[in-house]
């Protein structure tokens, strides 16, 4: 073994300068440990493909935590079990690199079970070398997910029991059920014949990545004489006679003959182009501005609450108002009720429109309440400030506003919307009513904003129509005080 390691592949450091202590020529592994051999096989394959300059090895947590002492390539040390996730980030960042995730059994099959499962399932174009020695070597011979039934470890002093710890996990068999992986094989570091097979499998896993074929994993049954408490020769024998009888050697998946998807060249973007993409508008739209109309003092700087049930376009109405305010050069905020209550049930939002920078975006003292259904009026009526304005969707609210100190507009918004043939646009009727009453923004501004906020073109005409109807309703009907409630109720 020592002799093997002294004949170093090119992809090993000549001298292991990162290693602590004075001996910089041999590895930190125990005599007879399989890691040294596996490292060497990987490094030789890196030599053969001439890839050490573009390779990145992810070191795990476990005995091979110091894999970066040895490989003369880019090295990253990862948290316990997370090497496949780290490898994903590296490979996606530099698709031309060769990324190797080197992991032990506790790391990969225990704490990192989820990371390997999903990296494999995504078919990340990486090579995973999974060293299975059926034990936690570094921490002192505790049970691993791959420890055999009956095997004694420091945490299974009476032997692993099926009742308590369950069965050893067979990673190759498990991952081979997934669609994406292209190559999965289990090999063993035991006699020369098996080491040769291991060499071939490791080469193939790297070659697959060089050829952009996708996810490869080689599980390597590896001697841990220290953890098993046996001599190195006995360890190899145990692999042959016991371990490989439980973890069968062989190829579990090989899709490498299937055609490979070509990698897309990464497109370069200039910064201005990027700004346009995330701006989501063309230049003309961006420059559109509308002037602020003269607004009566009592309607200035309104704090607005809009409330109704889900599906009435409550949030959308608030957004429209805010957008209108924005392009009319106001300060504005829109704050939704969010989360489960939006899925069905009630919806409300709070809108501020102001001539000066807005402090609290919360509307607790309300200047304007737009109540689209009865629960909304019940809930928020008392929050409205004295002399505030309440717009009532009288089609759905069968009662008067109880307060006498506020201004009230009863608008049969749902009925008007129905007359146009679309109940859903009752919110735009209300918008028309509110704008007609307060003139907080210009009509042109509302029509422009509505047109640019509606995705379906057939809504454009409808919206324009109902907005006008909403306005006309307010203009042509004498304003009704809440004492003379006479609007038609459905």
């Amino acid at each position: 073994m020592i002799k093997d390691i002294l004949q170093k592949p090119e992809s090993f450091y000549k001298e292991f300068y990162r290693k602590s202590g004075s001996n910089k020529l041999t590895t930190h592994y125990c005599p007879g440990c399989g890691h040294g051999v596996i490292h060497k096989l990987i490094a030789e394959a890196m030599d053969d493909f001439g890839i050490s300059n573009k390779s990145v090895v992810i070191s795990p947590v476990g005995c091979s935590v110091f894999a970066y002492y040895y490989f003369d390539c880019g090295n990253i040390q990862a948290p316990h079990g997370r090497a496949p996730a780290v490898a994903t980030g590296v490979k996606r960042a530099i698709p031309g690199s060769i990324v190797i995730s080197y992991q032990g059994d506790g790391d990969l099959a225990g704490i990192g079970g989820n990371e390997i499962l999903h990296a494999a399932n995504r078919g990340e174009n990486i090579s995973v070398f999974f060293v299975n020695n059926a034990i936690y070597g570094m921490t002192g011979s505790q049970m691993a997910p791959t420890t055999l039934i009956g095997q004694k470890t420091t945490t299974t002093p009476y032997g692993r029991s099926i009742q308590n710890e369950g069965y050893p996990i067979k990673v190759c068999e498990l991952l081979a059920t997934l669609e994406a992986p292209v190559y999965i094989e289990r090999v063993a570091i035991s006699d020369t014949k098996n080491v040769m097979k291991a060499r071939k499998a490791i080469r193939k896993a790297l070659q697959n990545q060089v050829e952009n074929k996708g996810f490869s994993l080689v599980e390597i049954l590896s001697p841990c004489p220290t953890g098993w408490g046996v001599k190195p020769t006995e360890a190899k024998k145990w692999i042959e006679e016991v371990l490989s009888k439980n973890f069968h050697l062989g190829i579990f998946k090989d899709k490498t003959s299937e055609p490979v998807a070509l990698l897309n060249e990464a497109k370069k973007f200039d910064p201005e182009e990027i700004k346009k993409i995330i701006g989501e508008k063309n230049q003309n739209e961006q420059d559109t501005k509308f002037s602020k109309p003269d607004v009566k003092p009592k309607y200035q700087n309104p704090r607005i609450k809009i409330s109704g049930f889900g599906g009435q376009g409550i949030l959308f109405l608030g957004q429209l108002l805010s957008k209108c305010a924005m392009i009319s050069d106001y300060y504005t905020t829109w704050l939704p009720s969010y989360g489960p209550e939006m899925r069905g049930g009630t919806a409300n939002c709070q809108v501020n429109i102001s001539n000066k920078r807005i402090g609290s975006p919360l509307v607790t003292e309300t200047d304007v309440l737009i109540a689209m259904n009865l629960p909304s009026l019940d809930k928020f009526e008392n929050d409205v400030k004295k002399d505030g304005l309440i717009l009532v969707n009288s089609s759905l609210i069968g009662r008067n506003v109880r307060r006498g100190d506020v201004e009230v507009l009863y608008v049969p918004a749902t009925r008007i919307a129905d007359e146009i043939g679309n109940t859903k646009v009752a919110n735009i009727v209300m918008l028309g009513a509110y704008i007609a009453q307060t003139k907080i923004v210009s009509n042109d501004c509302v029509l422009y904003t509505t047109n640019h906020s509606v995705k379906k073109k057939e809504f454009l005409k409808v919206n324009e129509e109902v907005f006008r109807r909403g306005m006309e309703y307010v203009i042509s009907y004498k304003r009704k005080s809440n004492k003379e409630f006479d609007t038609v109720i459905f």
Partner: protein
Amino acid sequence: MAKLFLKGNEAVIRGAILAGCKSYYGYPITPASEIAEAAAKFFPLVGGTFLQAESEVGAINMSYGAASAGQRVMTASSGPGISLKQEGISYAAGSELPIVIVDIMRGGPGLGNIAPEQSDYNQIVKGGGHGNYKLIVLAPNCGQEMCDFTMLAFELADKYRTPVVVLADGFIGQMMEPVELPDPVNKIPTKNWQVDGTKETKNNLISSIYLDENDLEEHNIKLQVKYRKIQETEARFEEIQTDDAEIILMGYGIVSRVLQTVVEEAREEGIKAGLLRPITLFPFPKDIINKLCDRAKVFFVCEMSNGQMVDDVRLALNGKCPVKFYGRMGGIVPGTQEILNKVRILATSLPARGNYTEKLSETFIKI
């Protein structure tokens, strides 16, 4: 350039892309999901990577990989997800990786609820993971800052080679406001430490392991020196009417917006109140606190938590000025009038300067 009308969460991604961020790894969680959704929409259009990870743990570790390769990378979540990311954050701090992490805080502990809270202060500012590390923490209070501070976060992350957190709450994330897109960053600094699969960088190592005690202490000292430099140079804050203020209100994020209105209304009543709003939570703006306490008679800290930032205010003042605290929990955002009432009480019983003993019972802790 005209403005866009965006949710804070959406503004984050605009800022990230303008800052040259090339990949986003995340996991859905309310109230932060719009960040992932905006990333999913835009990153592919600008030649970047968006990947919905299998878990929060996966997301932070993918970010760890991308940052190791020298890419500008980010992830985002809310409290429960951030708790899961803490392992990776500790590793990133130890390995000195510039990753931008956005936390849109919600109610806790445990599953709590999805309403806005500020109870992640301790786990973000004081370090929720293991080890002697700190994160730079930026606290935006509007949509524009969600964009701008995300950009700033990338600059600071690269400058100091450290993870940076943008810490906001559910309201700042969900609220829509006009946002003006800043100019894109043209030049991203090259990193001589990155591991990018080239001959030039192949001797680089990204690692947080130092087996030898002396080496690890040395590494820790290096980190602390960095944090000290950050403390000295990067503290940011905003002051509103503090010049002659006797009552200094303090709060960050959405609370600072409420406090701004409280100050305006208190001033109308003739109460000399001012607002000091920390923008960086680490580094905490201690110097300005000490400057203001020369004139101020009382500091009034308001948070949507059980009182986490208030500890830092007390530490900064070190007994030089009384500190009152008012906190709401569970996702309740304190209203203007609610706080104004406390301010009125304070105004009528201002302690004489330099002569006070603080009793806990005097404070406004609401529990």
